[in-house]
């Protein structure tokens, strides 16, 4: 079957970031720190991964139909519903009421959903059948068990 994303329990995205400024948040009562000029903002992973926080959801992948695109069973997908889907995007689509993650193929007005694993078939909508793109996958998070 396809990489079906279990939708039972949506995961909340933290609204605030945990990153703090490195310096410049205290009053200096003496010689200013020469390091202050070199202070940089810390990297905020949420800021990098989430462009539209109100429209972004995290979904967990089940299955290996997108293996060759680097999406594996158990990975967490960052799905942005504010991005307009285009040819070549990896998308979460709704096929017969179920979520599936596939690559969107849109050429000459013909839409199909392509898996990234040769053992899975392409999904080509039949006449009158609609494919609903639920959101565009912008990142896949893989965590290693350590």
């Amino acid at each position: 079957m396809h990489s079906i994303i279990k939708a039972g329990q949506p995961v909340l995205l933290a609204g605030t970031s945990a990153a703090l400024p490195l310096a410049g948040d205290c009053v200096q009562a003496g010689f200013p720190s020469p390091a202050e000029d070199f202070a940089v903002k810390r990297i905020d992973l949420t800021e990098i991964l989430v462009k539209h926080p109100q429209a972004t959801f995290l979904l967990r992948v089940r299955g290996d139909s997108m293996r060759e695109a680097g999406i594996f069973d158990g990975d967490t997908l960052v799905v942005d519903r504010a991005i307009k889907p285009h040819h070549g995007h990896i998308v979460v689509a709704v096929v017969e009421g179920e979520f599936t993650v596939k690559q969107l193929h849109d050429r000459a007005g013909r839409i199909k959903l392509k898996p990234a694993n040769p053992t899975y078939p392409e999904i080509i909508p039949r006449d009158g059948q609609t494919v609903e793109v639920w959101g565009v996958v912008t990142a896949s998070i893989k965590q290693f068990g350590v």
Partner: protein
Amino acid sequence: MYAHVDGNNFYVSAENVFRPSLKGRPVVVLSNNDGCCISRSNEAKALGIKMGEPWFKVRHLEESAGLVGLSANFVLYGDMSDRMMSLAAGLGPTQEVYSIDLSAPGYCCVSFEKEVVDWCCD
């Protein structure tokens, strides 16, 4: 000028986002302990189910009309509401949040409905 922003069948709409198989079916969300219907899809309204109607009075429709009753997931509805409210907040200089699915930004913006429909709720 005020804009009035109201999510349609809000709890059911929030559930539909993550359960696309429910689309087009009569669905109700039930209050704590599955007591009463507190949100109804348009299809459930068409079956004559009233707001606040006890579940035991309508559950026979599960068999006869394919009605789906869902236990409330208020954490999910709160999160979807926050998303909607923060979008609405960007449309005017001030905002008054009236309830989980109602708010009034200071003035109106025509693109709002499309944004919310596209972004979070269907």
